């Protein structure tokens, strides 16, 4: 029936909701250019990109999970596990250490995925268990000790440059491209969105829903473990009790502020990157102006609300 598409009166509004995050970033950058000394320098941009990289990587995985109408609280614990394993296996070389930490991600992802897809737990609860237990396990593995890492290859990942741009940023950018490609161009991406849109319907259509869901949780955990190992490389030490603390909230915020609805069925990869960047800039601005934590927190609250309000889905049906 609806052979419609009569002139859309709300074009401007819609544009605003699509590009709200980018607009917010622009405003914040403009503010900083005028009011923050030394803001417009390459070294400053570099620091911001380096600092945001781990959050972006975690948020990418989170966006995939949220696209299936799920949520993953365990990402911080996965980072801790990955971090805890690195010093243990660094003796075999950097490749072994990285593999060990990725395996940790795979295992956690499998557990989450099976709990969600097969046992049928609600994602927030399924991942809560590993949120609590995972970090404990990581600290047990590391015997509660912070361990310095000196392996030059690993440290290169965290603080080296390639063609003038930090390796860390290259890696994050590459992962963004991969995930964007995954969502837009692959069968897996389409299936993921379909599950988020209507899981019973997807199941009845004969799609391997459980397999896709498990894969999504594994991907999310593996991305988190990459973030974990990169954090270790950057801090040049492994501290299982601290790495990735509360990152789940930052990641979820980045995803949602970036315009991906928590109700699933839609993933905005670039928006997610922008969301993370926005929150990073907010924090950087607060620190540069030497504001108190109380102010920082309240301003963050307001910015999250405004960004999400602008980007919220208008209910049309």
């Amino acid at each position, binding site marked *: 029936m609806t052979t419609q598409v009569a002139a*859309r009166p709300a074009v401007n509004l819609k544009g605003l909701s699509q590009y709200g995050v980018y607009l917010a970033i622009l405003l914040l950058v403009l503010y900083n250019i005028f009011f923050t000394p030394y803001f417009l320098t390459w070294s400053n941009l570099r620091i911001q990109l380096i600092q945001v990289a781990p959050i972006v990587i975690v948020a990418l995985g989170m966006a995939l999970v949220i696209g299936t109408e799920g949520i993953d609280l365990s990402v911080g614990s996965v980072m801790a596990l990955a971090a805890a394993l690195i010093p243990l296996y660094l003796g075999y070389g950097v490749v072994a250490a990285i593999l060990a930490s990725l395996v940790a991600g795979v295992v956690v992802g499998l557990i989450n995925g099976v709990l969600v897809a097969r046992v049928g737990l609600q994602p927030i609860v399924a991942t809560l268990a590993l949120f609590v237990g995972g970090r404990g396990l990581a600290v047990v593995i590391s015997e509660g000790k912070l361990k310095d890492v000196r392996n030059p290859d690993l440290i290169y990942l965290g603080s080296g440059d390639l063609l003038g741009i930090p390796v860390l940023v290259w890696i994050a950018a590459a992962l963004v491209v991969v995930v964007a490609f995954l969502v837009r161009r*692959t*069968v897996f991406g*389409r299936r993921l969105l379909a599950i988020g*849109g*209507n899981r*019973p319907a997807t199941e*009845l259509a004969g799609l391997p829903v459980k397999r896709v869901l498990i894969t999504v949780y594994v991907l999310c955990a593996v991305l988190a473990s990459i973030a974990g190992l990169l954090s270790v490389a950057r801090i040049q030490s492994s501290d299982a009790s601290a790495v990735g603390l509360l990152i789940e909230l930052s990641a979820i915020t980045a995803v949602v502020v970036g315009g991906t609805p928590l109700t699933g069925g839609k993933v905005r990869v670039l928006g997610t990157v922008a969301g993370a960047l926005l929150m990073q800039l907010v924090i950087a601005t607060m620190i540069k102006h030497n504001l108190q934590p109380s102010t920082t927190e309240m301003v963050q609250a307001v910015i999250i609300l405004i960004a999400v309000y602008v980007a919220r889905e208008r209910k049309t049906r």
Partner: protein
Amino acid sequence: MLEVLDVSKIFPGVRALDRVSFRLAAGEVHALVGENGAGKSTLIKVLTGVYQPDEGELRYQGEKAQFGTPMDAQHAGISTIYQEVNLIPQMSVAHNLFLGREPRNRFGLLDEKRMHHEAREILAGYGVTADVKRQLGTLALGAQQMVALARAVMIDAKVVIMDEPTSSLEPREVETLFGIIRDLHRRGIGIIYVSHRLDELYQICDAVTILRDGRVVHTGKLAELERIKLVSLMLGREMSGSFSAFKESDPEVSDAPPVLRARGLTSRRKLHDISFEVRPGEVVGLGGLLGAGRSETIKAIGGAYPLDSGDVQVDGVDLKKPTTVRAVKAGIAVQPEDRKAEGIIAGLSVRENIALAVLPQLSRFGLVSDAKIDAIVEKYMTRLRIKASGPGQLVGDLSGGNQQKVLLARLLATGPRVLLLDEPTRGIDVGAKAEVQSLIDELAAEGLGVVLVSSDAEELIEGADRVVVLRDGVVVGTLTGAEVTTEDLMATIAAGGNQ
């Protein structure tokens, strides 16, 4: 009594109501008809305060009225049964019945005893005998619809509005409903009645208003309007002959080996040793009352309902323990009963919805090929005459009939051997219904096996070559031949009960 003048309602991109005027007289049963998406439900929602009109005004009992919320309308004496059961499935039957107006004791607390007692009494009058403490969701849809009806009528209403109340009722329940409507009619209560089933309209309605594309195209006495004329007005084009699009002639059913063979399907208490087979080109109907287990049978074959025993064969190959994935691979395509909850993915485009199940075939190394997808989407959109602004339109924005066609397109794209269709024409208008029906014929003619479930007895008789009748999860008979009538079907169902 209740009147709207020049009301318009605009949704982003659609003018759902365009200067509609409508008048309900006291004691009148007024039919509201129109194609899917004509604006019937929207008009009702405007009348009852769910939506505020963008233009025009509302008059109630001679005075200008404005309802901010459905609650306001209810207080004013306008009671509504909305399209699709709108009750709370997790709550008990009694709580649903009284929600928002529960009886209270002198401490202001709910009087559960009284509530249960009264609920039992009221529902008995509607032929519902289930335990009122049970979760509503565990009742058959028909019973749920009766609860919704009871809820709407039990308040002291002056106007009762019913949006497609019969789409999930069985014939006996429809009779009960009509009894109630006649009673309301006698008491001088105005009734607005929306339905796609034309027979019903002529049975009980006095007046009719026809909507098309959000505009009123006709209003007047129903008796003065011929059926054929009514349909033409609705569709905006001439309709000729029969309303059922099924071809009269029975196609040659070959004695080729069956494409689908279900044997001894049994599932805890719900299905008992159900066996039947479908040959290529054959349409097998599943008959029975609501709750007979037809939907479960279909889902079981499609791998979506757990079986305790029994097996399913496609082209002689056994599907060991059917799962949805295996069933689709083997060539079984299921169109579920509940389009919104289990069928379409409303937030995705027509294109994505159609391509969903065949993505692996349309891709290489896991990468989708846009060209291939476009080709297949184009093919089915043309073939099924899907009306959408383009392949990119969200399915949730389509009319019911077109949503149904998108769903069919998804099934057909998988290149199935057997189609299992559960209520394929529920809630879609006569035009779309005819299209879907002729499509079923066409597909069968191409050699597909089709299983058809429909609560509409006529559709079943005309559409199917053979009807397998179920009752309480047991096969109680099979009707074959061109001479089968609705009466035969009813008789078999009834006889099944006496065994």
